[in-house]
């Protein structure tokens, strides 16, 4: 304990030099920007700036690059709330209730809560990173393919039980998403599947073009097709600040989102995206008024936004404690460290205390900077909604195209985005939810690959899923959820689904 504080002081003394504070600031600023721009995520941001850090000393370089990483999680919520375009893949869930709030003139509070939730989650996760990194990292490595598969099965069961609207339509969308997710090279055998000779489809359809198309482009098309001219909202200061009730409703979701996000973030894979789905589902499940979700529930913004920030820092645990990156962004950070002559490994924290504790301290500073940066911008961003649609929407469209193209320099991605945009428009006209489909696209490759890897490990023996304790644990939870969902068949009681249907009838 004492040693930790001694080290933290070392860290802060590293950060509190004018140069390092500046790098932290610049990193957070760039992070917010890449988070705001659709398509351009932290991965693109960090890799573009990587070469410019060659000349810096290691600590400054890593402070700058890490700032971009967690800064992007703040920025990602902005376009989700204002325009229903996820600025970053982990902000997909924020689109649902954040945008609904914006349409009710509560964009300000949604943005503010997103920033505050991100701050709380970010800061608490650094505490977690500081104290728990080494033991948690060991736990993360225990996650092999069977554990991952069972976690996802459990997640899917929980989610399909909790998503609103027609169950049949939702299931149809999940299955459709899973099918789209099957496109690409079969990772176990090397076969091309459903790619029709387009090499670029070998890696499957990317999440970014799908999410931007299904959410963003379809929204633009829907708006263009609707005759109503929305009144231009003139936000007053009162409308920018969350009300007491909104604060009260957000506290618990932020807390839960933080814990969930941090724990899920440690698990290898694109876990920060999954953490937002799980957080949203949990909030909806335990809410007393689940029918408000989708109609602008502040909890639906607070939980996922806290989760994605906590997860982005949780993902650093295995990297810093063991030197093993668990996703594309930590992999680039690992590369950045290697360029500076440090190969993180199990001895990283002992051998490089200045870098490790400097990074930890910079994250405390960075989160503070981000809060101060984002709160005043709320007013500015909300004003963006006053720009007439005939100017705003073509501009957004342009940014979507450029952003999606920039990720892989791929025109195929732009094509996918356009197709998904039209598809999303048609689906919404027919009252299908697009979020379950995005979920299917995200999960399909991971779930299939981990399933087949597991069976390869056990030479085809299915008992591998129940022999391993963590895997079995998730399967038991999934089973309990299924049994719970069967309960209404036997015990007649009005559940929230019916209340939701009634609420919609009244509206």
């Amino acid at each position, binding site marked *: 304990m004492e040693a930790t504080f001694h080290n933290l002081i070392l860290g802060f003394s590293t950060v509190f030099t004018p140069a390092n504070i500046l790098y932290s600031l610049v990193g957070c600023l760039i992070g917010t920007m890449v988070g705001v721009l659709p398509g351009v995520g932290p991965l693109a941001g960090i890799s573009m700036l990587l070469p410019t850090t060659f000349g810096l000393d290691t600590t400054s370089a890593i402070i700058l690059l890490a700032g971009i990483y967690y800064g992007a999680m703040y920025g990602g919520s902005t376009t989700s709330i204002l325009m229903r375009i996820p600025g970053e893949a982990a902000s997909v869930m924020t689109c649902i209730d954040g945008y609904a709030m914006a349409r009710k003139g509560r964009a300000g509070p949604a943005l503010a809560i997103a920033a505050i939730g991100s701050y709380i989650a970010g800061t608490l996760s650094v505490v977690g990173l500081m104290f728990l990194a080494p033991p948690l990292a060991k736990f993360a490595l225990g996650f092999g393919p069977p554990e991952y598969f069972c976690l996802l099965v459990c997640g899917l069961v929980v989610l399909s039980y909790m998503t609103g609207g027609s169950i049949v339509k939702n299931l149809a969308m999940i299955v459709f998403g899973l099918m789209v997710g099957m496109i690409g090279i079969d990772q176990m055998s090397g076969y091309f599947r459903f790619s029709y000779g387009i090499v670029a489809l070998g890696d499957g359809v990317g999440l970014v073009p799908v999410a931007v198309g299904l959410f963003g482009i379809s929204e633009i098309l829907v708006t263009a097709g609707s005759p109503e001219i929305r009144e231009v909202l003139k936000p007053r200061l009162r409308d920018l600040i969350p009300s007491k009730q909104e604060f009260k409703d957000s506290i618990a979701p932020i807390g839960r989102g933080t814990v969930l996000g941090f724990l899920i973030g440690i698990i290898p894979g694109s876990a920060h995206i999954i953490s937002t789905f799980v957080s949203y589902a949990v909030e909806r499940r335990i809410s007393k008024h689940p029918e408000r979700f989708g109609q602008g529930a502040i909890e639906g913004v607070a939980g996922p936004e806290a989760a994605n920030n906590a997860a982005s820092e949780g993902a650093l645990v295995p990297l810093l404690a063991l030197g093993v990156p668990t996703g594309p962004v930590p*992999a680039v950070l690992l590369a950045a460290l290697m*360029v500076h002559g440090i190969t993180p490994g199990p001895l990283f924290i002992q051998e490089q205390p200045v870098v490790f504790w400097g990074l930890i301290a910079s994250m405390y500073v960075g989160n503070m900077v981000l809060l101060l940066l984002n709160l005043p911008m709320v007013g500015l961003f909300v004003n963006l909604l006053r720009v007439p649609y005939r100017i705003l929407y073509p501009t957004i469209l342009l940014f979507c195209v450029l952003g999606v193209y920039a990720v892989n*320099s791929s025109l195929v991605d732009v094509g996918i985005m356009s197709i998904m945009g039209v598809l999303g428009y048609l689906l919404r006209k027919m009252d299908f939810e697009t979020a379950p489909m995005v979920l299917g696209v995200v999960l399909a490759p991971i779930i299939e690959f981990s399933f087949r890897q597991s069976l390869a490990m056990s030479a085809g023996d299915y008992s591998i899923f129940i022999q391993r304790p963590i895997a079995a644990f998730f399967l038991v939870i999934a089973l309990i959820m299924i049994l719970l969902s069967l309960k209404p068949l036997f015990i007649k009681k009005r559940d929230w689904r019916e209340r939701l249907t009634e609420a919609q009838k009244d509206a």
Partner: protein
Amino acid sequence: MKPMRVLVGAAAIVCMVAVGPLADIAPAAEPYPVRPVQVIVPFPPGGVADLVARPLAAALEKLLKQPVVIVNKTGAGGAVGMQAQAVAKPDGYTLMVALSSISVMPEVDALFNRPPVYKLSDFAPIALLSSDPTVLVVSSKSPWKTVADFVADAKKRPGEIKYASSGVYGTMHVAMEMLAHSAGIKLRHIPTGGGGPALNALLGGHVDAISGGPNVSIPHIKAGTVRVLAGWGDKRLPALPDVPTLKEVGYKDVEFYIWSGFFAPAATPEPVIKALREATAKAVQAPDFKTAMEKMATPIDYLDAPDFKKFWDRDAERLIKAVRNIGKVE
């Protein structure tokens, strides 16, 4: 403020994408180069190819007096970027840094009876930049102290020892199967999504062995969590002087390197190739490039075009044979 912000954002993006279209204007018999040069890296940022290409681009920029821009054109295990290079205009303004897997892909396409995405003859080699043999890494909890132990155990229980790879027909897969074929053993292959996840699978105890890059394995060797039994090179690694090569312990035909090379499209005019060869020869001597490579523990292994061509032909022959031995994965 508001239009300002949008402008800044727009400017950033325009800068990012503008370099692509710029390369389409064709000059006739001009001195080379007169405009920015694009270097395709068919792998994501942070990978071996990317980390070699970036300092190279920085060094070339000073020599060619033109911006040299890295474009990560990723997808399908590198096939997307390599195809883009194969069909690029052969004017010396679109070049590529690729890895040894370049030789494997056409063979895999042939295996599946599909039209090849590109042919090896689509590329003109400029220089070999680095080469690094993989090493046989096992958990320190495993009973194997030598390659002989490993092979003997694998013979006792064929198909039961598990190894992870960076992906099917990827470097870590082909290298391990080369050994398996030569030693007459059968191992169980668990493909993962890349070199990092494969190492994680070993550290987490989900597999028993990997054939991995030495630079990422060394910290774990130092920490005592893993052991290295042998290397795939033709001589011992300077960083691991006690580790024998597989050739030394009796597997004469086993040799594998993760190498990176610099390529131009095949039809690039001779004067342009000459200019690039000269610039690259100087670039690999540049102190900045040397330091960058040293820091990443990736040994520079420079060979000029003719020698590189010979090296590449020999290497491709070995790899193609290995892929044929693997055959279709069920």
